[in-house]
């Protein structure tokens, strides 16, 4: 077994410094070492997208990233999406629009959708379907997932359009 190496990373706002085997995958660091089990493993081959999380703001499939590659990075998982009790608009929309059944693909789907909306705040239905092609859902048939992403996009755009109150010193 290879000697362990140090990894420093920030996950959902908390800094961690861990000793890991060089072969450890990021998804296993997140799930087994940090206990964040909302990130799921579905296929081991980066096809299903259940393990999708954000590294430095971009969606990655964490079953194909080594933990050591995330050294120094900022990671966000599904557990970091809500702000306390306030769900992220995508979480709200997946819930309200019934864009989930067993829930196993949901975290990865939400993280992939967040990345999609960051790059394209007003996607068409076809763009949403294309953007989520790397995330498999075997339960729902995707219709409500697409609807949820569309609705969340509207919410996020509306929030952006709100005038931001600035404190005047």
């Amino acid at each position: 077994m290879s000697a362990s190496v140090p990894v420093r990373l920030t996950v959902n706002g908390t800094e961690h410094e861990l000793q890991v085997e060089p072969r450890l995958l990021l998804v296993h660091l997140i799930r087994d070492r940090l206990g964040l089990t909302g990130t799921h493993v579905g296929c081991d081959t980066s096809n299903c997208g259940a393990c999708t999380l954000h590294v430095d703001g971009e969606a990655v499939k964490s079953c194909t990233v080594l933990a050591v590659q995330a050294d120094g990075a900022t990671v966000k998982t599904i557990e970091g999406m809500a702000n306390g009790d306030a769900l992220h608009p995508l979480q709200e929309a997946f819930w309200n629009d019934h864009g989930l059944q067993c829930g196993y693909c949901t975290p990865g789907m939400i993280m992939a959708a967040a990345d999609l909306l960051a790059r394209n705040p007003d996607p068409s239905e076809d763009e949403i379907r294309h953007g989520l092609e790397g995330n498999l859902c075997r339960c729902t048939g995707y219709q409500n997932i697409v609807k949820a992403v569309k609705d969340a996009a509207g919410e996020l755009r509306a929030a952006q359009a709100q005038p931001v109150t600035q404190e005047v010193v």
Partner: protein
Amino acid sequence: MRVDPRARGAVRYSVDADMPGQLHAALVRSTVAHGVVRGIDVSGVAPGVTVLLPEDVADLPLYGCQIADQAVLAERPRHAGDVVAAVAAPTPAAARAAARAVVVEVDELPAVFDALDAAREEAPLLHEGLSVSDNDAAYFGIRPVAGTNICHRFRIRHGDVEAGFAAADVVVEGTFRTPAAAHVPMEPHATVARFTEDGRLEVVTGTQTPFNMRMELAAMFGLDEEDVRIVVPPMGGSFGAKTFTRQEGIVAALARKTGRPVKLVLGRSEEFLTLNRHPSIVHVRLGATRTGDLVAKAVTCWADTGAYADCGPGVAQKMGFAAPGPYRIPNCWVDAHAVYTNTPPNGAFRGYGAMQSIWASERTMDLLAARLGTGPLELRRRNLLRDGDAYATGEAMHGTCFEELLDRAAAAVGYEHDPAGKGLCLVMKGMQTPSRASIAIEREGDGYVIRCATTEMGQGARRSLALLAAERLGCRPEQIRVPDPDTDRVPYDTRTTSSRSTFMMAGALAEACEALLEDGRRGHGTIVNDGGLDPDTGQGVASTHWHQAAGAAHLEVDEETGRVRLHRVHCAVYAGRVVNAPGAALQNEGSMTMGLGTALFESVDFNEGQVTNANLSDYNVPTARDAAALTHELVEREGAPIHGLGETALPPVPAAIGNALASLGIELYDLPMTPERVLEAIDRRAAPSPEPDLEARRR
């Protein structure tokens, strides 16, 4: 505020279940399809790893939910991937490394991979002497054919089929094939188990069949059923994959040997070696009068159940009693068989044999319509079952609405306006009969708790039960808690299969709520649906009520590439009464999407018994892009009983698409309808239709 844990990634599935002090397991699998283990060399295994060998489980009897034919570890592997040894180590990585270090020496035996080859008298036998299981999943008169690989045969004898064909003006026939398919639940199989100090076996696992598993593990380890506890967390999908006993016996045997809790999570590639959908070969011969009245139908079904029977006898039987289809046919004979081959076991899969039969029969309806020169819609309308008609099993039909479903599906694609590029399919599918459901409900704080064995796999069972109980008790659904099934705490239920739970549990729950209102504190309800078929004649009651649907497809084909472009696929599904509208819609959408995969993409491929596409790169399931053309509707009837919706919208999709291709002269007999097969069918279009494979008619 109660926030849905699914939206927060807060659900704890079986893969997330841990027991303190647990070891991690990995499996050692046979690389040959049929052989005898000559030796297992464990000298390369790291110290501190426990290896479970066949001699460690020699005291454990054979198991299997319908036929006891499977050993916990295979001394005689019967498929490539059969588990011959297992290891337990401190970490999953150490376990995987140890499993790779185990060297298994196997003497090969002759193997057989095709159901028709396997059914020949001279075929190598997979099992010598078959004993029907002492399990309540083996309830229907299983008929192994001695000295062959046929582990069950089922017959329907309704009328005189030869006289019927003699009276027919037109007879068509065809042989239809469907491949093995993978369930692909996003969460793989996962189990953690331990023996407690007082000798009880505790198992946390994803399963749709907690009580069948309790029965099987108790028999395996010589325990009273009460000394086996099965706890079922929510499953990340199942679709039939997590039924009966899979890896649980091995995990429990490792726990027994190590004296520690043991956890096992299968890798995705192992899923393809664990349980798949039955490949089928179905031969249909259908006769009608010149005016289009069906007079005779003869169907022979071959369900390839793989190396172990699992519930293959039940699947073959359902394939058989779905074969007449929702039509009046005075003379109908069916011969259905479950056959062993040296491939991974095949078992329950959303639709449970019905899809295979419906694909063959509904394609044959369109062959007949073409031969008669009548329209596929008229032919179906003319012959469909109505209330009071006798089905081929002798039972009188009730609560039918096939005509309305067919009309709605046809209207959705404008079938009557122009049938070109369009196809129809009519579906009738049974529900588990007989079965028994029990449920208990108790007051808890200012609400209630439901104790029930119905498992949650994404279908929304808990939500439906909470909605039904709230309606009965006059409270809000949020006041009702439905904890994970735990066989120590919930009353008996047959299993969460065959789209039976909402209907059966609703009946039991109504009784339980009434009892609770009387008692003030708790109530208990039980419901039994009686019935069953004589396996030699197929007469009796196949299903308490029937799941009904119609599908319609509209498509075009790129004749250069063979690619099918769907304009729309629509399903009209009978719900009786909808309990949970968003959940019902999701069940339809999910079933249709899985049906789309079955129709166009999905096939577990083999080369000499080795799976060649055991990953999600090479085994393609539908994505969000593929599903864009799917639509559906639910049909309700005032005062009608609840009909389950877990599977009904899957079988219409392949045959509706197949018949839409047939409307363009592109006749397909085998699933999936890949571009290669479409191109071959385009090349055949000018030529007369192929000779049916009469080999499949052999009985």
